[in-house]
């Protein structure tokens, strides 16, 4: 058991240590400084820009940024719909999988565009290799979109007073070419050498011990899995995601995949410090996020390692922890850790079934997505966190007797309005979605695997995962039907783009304002005290909004199990 815990600690520590220099590199990329990879990527990028006749030096204001972001995302969405619905006759379909239904294609395309990857299909039978390749493309660009939006925020915060905030296409392309692509090549190579398939050959077949012939789905898995994690996407190649032996063959690949999904969100925090030349600010953000992460993660690991008291009473040995729904090659500790990491960061890949987690672990997984502010997805994490910073700045600014300001810019009615809308949207989508589902049990309860509190948790989890753009599932839910495809599809769109536009809009508005130099009366926003305030705001807003619904789900289940 100690080895398992040590494995988790090592995985986490290595990631943090690597994130610091990587963050420095990211800051360099966005600042347009020289890097080692220039000779390789400059010609490639220039080729892209020449073909699409975009001048990457033309700067945009925040509105132009958002128009560019939405337009290009819409194009990807349409392309995705087309590919998924017509994959049956399009090339690269060795297994002869049929085209997707319209509602499933709608859900799939959106959820890959918005970096969520709520998969209501199974990779083995639901998509062709061409579709997988297109989804892989979306893995890259959806992560690039989030990172580019975050960098618009960085630029807005860096400038004393500015209107123009860089070129969106440039930021997005360099995110993909300079950051995601090189890292993906590295990770994919490691994964391929550990037994992950990398082929276009179609199904393999084996003869089992019983003598049956069984088809085994293969494909370009290693490449897919690398960017699935680096881009905090989480959409798996196989239905069982990273619990599948070919998607996560051994403990080492488990560590590499874990490392890949955490590295960019962590590095983005440090890159903010390097980019703004405010390292203390980065450490404040890192500190708050880490405290939040540990509070969610440590108890979960403990509960999972302790095992299920109801089963223990029946005389089942709980020595290895709560192993129902988990893989023996990974173990309960690493699965517990993964379940929180993947929900805190908006990856949503799973290496164990969250449906089988202990009730309170399930609650922690949901809370991770309900807070949606600790580490977070590629770029999106910092954007979400920024909203909480604004709220905390406002309240604490008042508490020290000054009208609130952040980095020398006054926070006024308009910024508060946007921040409040973004903060409200998250509980609204989760609670209203779940309420709708609960109000029509005739349609929804047939899809539930479990009755009672746990069934309620399954519904709550599905909308939480959608609203947090996470994409993991409690997986007790039969979710491939029009109700779930369409409702979660809309939740996905709203919960992706509004939390991107909101913070960027605030940053754009702030950037235009007059800069107020700091004085002794100014509240320092890079101090531990302020960090505490941010944490309190996050905890109170999420705890307050979700406490009643969690009571009826996991908390009720927990108390009934004792």
């Amino acid at each position, binding site marked *: 058991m100690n080895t398992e815990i040590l494995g988790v600690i090592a995985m986490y520590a290595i990631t943090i240590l690597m994130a610091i220099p990587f963050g420095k590199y990211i800051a360099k990329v966005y600042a347009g400084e020289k890097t080692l990879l220039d000779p390789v990527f400059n010609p490639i990028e220039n080729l892209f820009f020449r073909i699409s006749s975009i001048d990457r030096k033309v700067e945009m204001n925040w509105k132009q940024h958002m128009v560019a972001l939405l337009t290009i995302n819409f194009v990807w969405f349409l392309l995705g719909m087309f590919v998924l619905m017509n994959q049956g006759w399009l090339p690269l379909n060795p297994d002869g999988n049929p085209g997707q239904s319209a509602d499933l294609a709608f859900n799939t395309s959106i959820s890959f565009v918005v970096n969520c990857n709520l998969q209501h299909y199974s990779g083995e039978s639901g998509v062709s290799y061409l579709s997988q390749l297109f989804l892989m493309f979306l893995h890259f660009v959806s992560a690039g979109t989030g990172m580019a939006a975050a960098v618009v925020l960085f630029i807005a915060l860096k400038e004393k007073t500015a209107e123009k905030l860089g070129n969106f296409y440039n930021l997005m392309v360099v995110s993909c070419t300079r950051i995601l692509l090189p890292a993906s090549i590295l990770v994919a190579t490691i994964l391929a050498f550990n037994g992950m398939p990398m082929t276009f050959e179609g199904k393999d077949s084996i003869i089992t011990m019983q003598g049956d012939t069984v088809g085994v789905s293969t494909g370009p898995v290693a490449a897919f899995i690398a960017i699935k994690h680096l881009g905090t996407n989480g959409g798996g190649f196989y239905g069982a995601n990273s619990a599948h032996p070919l998607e996560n063959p051994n403990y080492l690949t488990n560590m590499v995949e874990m490392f890949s999904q955490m590295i960019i969100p962590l590095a983005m925090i440090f890159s903010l410090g390097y980019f703004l030349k405010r390292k203390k600010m980065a450490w404040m953000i890192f500190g708050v996020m880490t405290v939040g992460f540990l509070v969610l993660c440590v108890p979960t690991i403990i509960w999972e390692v302790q095992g299920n008291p109801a089963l223990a009473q029946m005389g089942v040995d709980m020595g290895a922890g709560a192993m129902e729904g988990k893989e023996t090659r990974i173990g309960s500790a690493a699965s517990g850790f993964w379940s929180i990491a993947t929900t805190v960061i908006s990856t949503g890949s799973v290496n164990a079934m969250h449906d089988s987690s202990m009730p309170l672990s399930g609650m922690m997984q949901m809370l991770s997505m309900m807070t949606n502010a600790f580490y977070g997805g590629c770029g999106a994490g910092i954007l979400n966190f920024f909203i909480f910073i604004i*709220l905390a700045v*406002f*309240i*604490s*600014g*008042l*508490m*020290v*007797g*000054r*009208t*609130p300001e952040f980095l020398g810019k006054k926070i*006024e*009615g308009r*910024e*508060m*309005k946007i921040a*409040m*809308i973004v*903060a*409200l949207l998250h*509980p*609204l989508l989760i*609670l*209203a979605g779940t*309420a*709708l589902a*609960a*109000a029509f*049990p005739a349609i929804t309860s047939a899809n539930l695997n479990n009755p009672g509190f746990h069934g*309620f948790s399954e519904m709550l989890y599905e909308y939480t995962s959608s609203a947090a753009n996470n994409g993991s599932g409690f997986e007790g839910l039969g979710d491939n039907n029009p109700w779930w495809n369409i409702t979660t599809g809309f939740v996905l769109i709203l919960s992706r783009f509004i939390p991107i536009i909101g913070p960027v809009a605030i940053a754009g508005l702030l950037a235009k304002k*007059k*800069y*107020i*130099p700091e*004085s*002794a*009366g*100014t*509240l*320092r926003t890079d*101090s531990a*005290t302020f960090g505490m*305030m941010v944490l*309190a705001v996050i905890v*109170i*807003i999420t*705890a*307050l*909004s979700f*406490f*009643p*619904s969690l*009571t*009826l789900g996991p*908390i*009720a289940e927990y*108390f*009934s199990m*004792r």
Partner: protein
Amino acid sequence: MKNQNASLFQKDLVNEALKQSFIKLNPRVLFRNPVMFTVEIGTFVMFAVCIWILSGNTTQGSFGYNFVIFLILLLTLLFANFAEAIAEARGKAQANSLRKTREETPAKLVTDNKPGFGVATQSVMSAQMKKGDVFICEAGDNIPTDGEIIEGLATIDESAITGESAPVIREAGGDKSSVTGGTKVLSDKIKVMVSTAPGESFLDKMIALVEGASRQKTPNEIALTILLAGFTLVFVIVCMTLKPFADYSNTPITISAFISLFVCLIPTTIGGLLSAIGIAGMDRALRANVITKSGKAVETAGDIDVLLLDKTGTITIGNRKATHFHTAKGVTDNHFIKNAVLSSIADETPEGKSILELANASPSTYQLNDPKFIKFTAETRSSGVDFEDTRIRKGAFDSIRNLVTQAGNQFPSEIDERVKMISNNGGTPLVVSENERVLGVIELQDIIKPGISERFERLRKMGVKTVMVTGDNPLTAKFIAEKAGVDDFIAEAKPEDKMNYIKREQEGGKLVAMMGDGTNDAPALAQADVGVAMNSGTQAAKEAGNMVDLDNDPTKLIEIVEIGKQLLMTRGTLTTFSIANDVAKYFAIIPALFIASIPALQGLNIMGLNSPQSAILSAVIFNAVIIPFLIPLALKGVAYKPIGASALLRRNLFIYGLGGILVPFVGIKVIDLVVSIWI
């Protein structure tokens, strides 16, 4: 007048406020406050539920219980209204007592428009006077209304306004020409032109501001209201979605339980006290004898980064006094002193008078034939007298030097030395010349107010930069600035220097406050973010600024900054307290909602409350009574401590954040113990 020790709740004010609490229940009035408006809707719903039960419904529990909930919600509204009403009443009472002094005073209205005092007058009541009317006041008269002296000079007792018993001198021309209604002329005669139409004086504006009709929300109040409306909406969502959740888990929840949960969760504490806090800020300013023209000005005062302070009266006691005559070579002492006196005969400034004192002379000592007095102007920075063919000038070192060298004469080197020495010692040199030849230099000395450097230190800890404005030369200014501990100074300041300094600081994003009284201060007062005009100042200055200080006390700016900070802090801390309260309320109500159908949730009842009904009642009662408990804090404001922003945040977070979490746990438990005696 300064009744700062008066209790917060005087009986007559409380009666008036109680009446107002009911009047303010009008939904159209309450609509301005989204948090309390939703509580009102909840109250109406509970009222309907009570009627529903009376007409035979049995699903919503007993009538008594529902009716009690209704009453408590109504009480919550009344408490919130009372907070606002008492703050209004206090402000109005304070302003009224100021206004009463000037009501219905007979005035001697001038009917023919001739100069001098031998003009026809007619007795009218003050209320009938219009702007532009001219009246005469003699010794013993009460001044009927605000105005500006256009002729004469008088000593005036302003104690009715300022509480200061020493009489002051007001005279035509210059910066001390304003008189205030309600004050009394003690000696001499003045002719005054009415400067404000009836009902439009600053006091009237202030009263209107307090009464709410013209009270506009400040930008910060708007932003805070958005935050609170957001929190209210979150709980609308939480409570509305709870219904299908509860149905799904077969847990019927009564309407009263929904409404109670909702009202407890939304930030009623700060929502109920918000406008009271704003009004109390203006009240506090008024109590400090400062009339504010808008609530925004008080708020802005809390943000001030730079404070422009006049040296005289603020940093130094009163005025400089002549302490020495230093005669130039080749001039007799007597000749120099005689000319120094001559140059100061017409000089009404305290410095001028102190020269006569030092020379032990009076204006009548020397007789002059047809003297022509040259007034001091900020441009020439010298004054003097011309008679026969003698031109005597007295002024700042560099202005006299220009005069002397332009005439082709030498500026004596020993006087040059002497001037520097005086300046280095913090004194002010005044050079006297006769026909463009230097006679000598008069040394004036300043005395720095005791305790002023501690106040500047306090300001520095608040993050406020202090700037001394003085007409002194840079050397003198530097000496006094260092001695008093100000951060910067503007020496040899002309009115436009102040203006330029303010503009420069504002371009750098700073907020600037200044105090002024003269007409030439008016542009700078208007330019400054907070401009405090002295009540004794000219009408133009008072119009230009956004506050008027009745005490004419230049150190008042420091107090105003603290009042502004207090206002914002009170808002912030009570918001934090209000939101932190929700944690305990959740633990009271949520188990109560579900325990009947999910007994396992007893584990969440960590306070061990008696029954679901008593738990809900206790939470609602706590929610209501916390408002009156906090009214004194809202009215008095949270104390500001200049200990640095982070330390202050830690302190307030500890008291109001942690306190806000813990207090309701105790409060609700105690109330539950009492309530459970009955149910």
